[in-house]
C-alpha cells in the first residue's frame, strides 16, 4: 500500500472501469481497519476525496460493490453536511454498526484535524512573514480557480438539457440560488427554505409528467 502521507501522488484513475469489479466477497472490515482505511482516504485526498474512497473501498479492498458505492454516495450527496463525513458514517455503520460509524468518522477527521491545527498554529505565528504571505496569496488565487472549475463541471450537464425536457427550471433555480447567496448575501437558511421545496417540487412534477 502506498504511504498515505507521502509526496504528491498521481491522480486516481477515472472511475468508469470500476463497474466490472465483482461483488464484494471479502469479510466486513474490523473497527481498526475502518479507522485506518478512512484515515488513509482522508490523508491521500487533496481537495476531493471521492475518487480515493472509491479506489480503496471498491477496487482495492472490495468491501463495497460499485453499485453499493454509488447508492451510498447518492444518499450522502442529498443529505446535508460534508459528503465524505456522511459517507464515513453510512459505510461504517453498515459494516460494524454505531461503533463502526464512530471509527470511520474518527479516521476521516482525526488526522486532518491534527494537521490543520498545526498549520493554524504556524499561520498564527508566521502568517505575516512577507515570503509566506506572497506564497499564500498565490495559493489562494489557485484555490479560487479550482473552485471555478468545480462550478463549471457541475454546470455542464445542467445547462445542456434536451429541448423537450420540461425541467428547464433547474438552471433557473441554480441562478436564483447564486444571486440570492452570492450577490445579495441573503442568509442561507431563509433562501434554502424557499428554493429547496420549489426545486424538489419541480423535479417531482417532471418525473410524474414523463410517466
Amino acid at each position, binding site marked *: 500500500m502506498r504511504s498515505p502521507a507521502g509526496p*504528491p*501522488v498521481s*491522480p486516481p484513475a477515472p472511475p468508469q472501469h470500476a463497474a466490472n469489479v465483482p461483488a464484494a466477497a471479502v469479510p466486513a472490515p474490523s473497527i481498526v481497519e475502518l479507522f485506518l482505511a478512512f484515515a488513509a482516504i*482522508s490523508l491521500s*485526498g*487533496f*481537495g476531493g476525496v471521492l475518487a480515493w474512497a472509491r479506489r480503496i473501498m471498491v477496487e482495492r479492498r472490495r468491501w463495497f460493490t460499485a453499485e453499493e458505492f454509488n447508492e451510498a454516495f447518492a*444518499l450522502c*450527496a442529498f*443529505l*446535508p*453536511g*460534508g*459528503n*465524505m*463525513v*456522511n459517507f464515513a*458514517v453510512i459505510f461504517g455503520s453498515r459494516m460494524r454498526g454505531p461503533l463502526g*460509524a464512530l471509527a470511520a*468518522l474518527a479516521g476521516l*477527521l482525526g*488526522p*486532518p*484535524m491534527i*494537521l*490543520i*491545527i498545526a*498549520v*493554524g498554529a504556524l499561520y498564527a505565528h508566521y*502568517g505575516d512573514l512577507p515570503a509566506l504571505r*506572497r506564497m*499564500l496569496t498565490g*495559493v*489562494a*488565487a*489557485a*484555490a*479560487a*480557480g*479550482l473552485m*471555478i*472549475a*468545480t462550478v463549471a463541471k*457541475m454546470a455542464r450537464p*445542467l445547462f445542456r438539457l434536451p429541448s423537450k425536457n420540461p425541467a428547464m427550471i*433547474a438552471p433557473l*433555480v441554480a*441562478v*436564483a*440560488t*447564486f444571486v440570492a447567496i*452570492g450577490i445579495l448575501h441573503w*442568509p*442561507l437558511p431563509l433562501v*434554502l427554505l424557499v*428554493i*429547496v421545496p420549489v426545486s*424538489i417540487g419541480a423535479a*417531482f412534477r417532471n*418525473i410524474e409528467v414523463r410517466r
Partner: protein
Amino acid sequence: MKSESGSLVTLAAFFAVTSLFAVGGGNSVIPEMHRYAVDVQHWLTGRQFADSFALAQLTPGPNLIIVTLIGYHVAGIVGAVVATLAMCGPTSMLAFIVGRASERFTGAAWHGALTRGLVPVTLGLTAASATVIVSVADYNWVAAAITLATACIALFMRVHPLWAFAAAALLGLAGLV
C-alpha cells in the same frame, strides 16, 4: 473567561445550525461562513478567511476542515474541536438514521426527485462560494492569471491540482503575485 465560553457556545450553535443547510457538501456553506465569521462576528478578516480557505485546500482531508481552522482562530484548540464536532455531529446523526433506513427507499420516485431537485441548488451555492473565494483573495494581474490557469488546468487537463498550487506558491514566493 466568560466571554471565551460565550464565543464557544456561539461557535458551536452557528456551525451546528449551518451544517444542516450544507446542501451538497461543505463547500456550499462557504458564503454563510464568510458572512457570519467575517461580517457579523469579526472573528477573522477577509484576508484571514482567504488564507484559511487556501490552507484547508492545501491540507489533505475533507473540504470542511476549514471549519476546524476557523474554530482555532476563535478559541484555540478547544475552539477547533468544538467547531468541528458542531459541524459534523448533527449531520452525522442524521446520516446514521437515514443510512439505516435507506435500503427501503432507493428507487422510490420521491427519492429521485429529492436528488434531482437538490442538484441545481448545490450548483448555485457552489457558484456563490466561488464568488466569495474570488472576492476575498488579493488580486493583481498575476493572481488573476493564476486563477484562470488553475481553472483551465482542472477543467481540461489530467494534471493533479496540487501541481497548480505548487506553481502558484512558487510564483508568489518569487514576488510576482
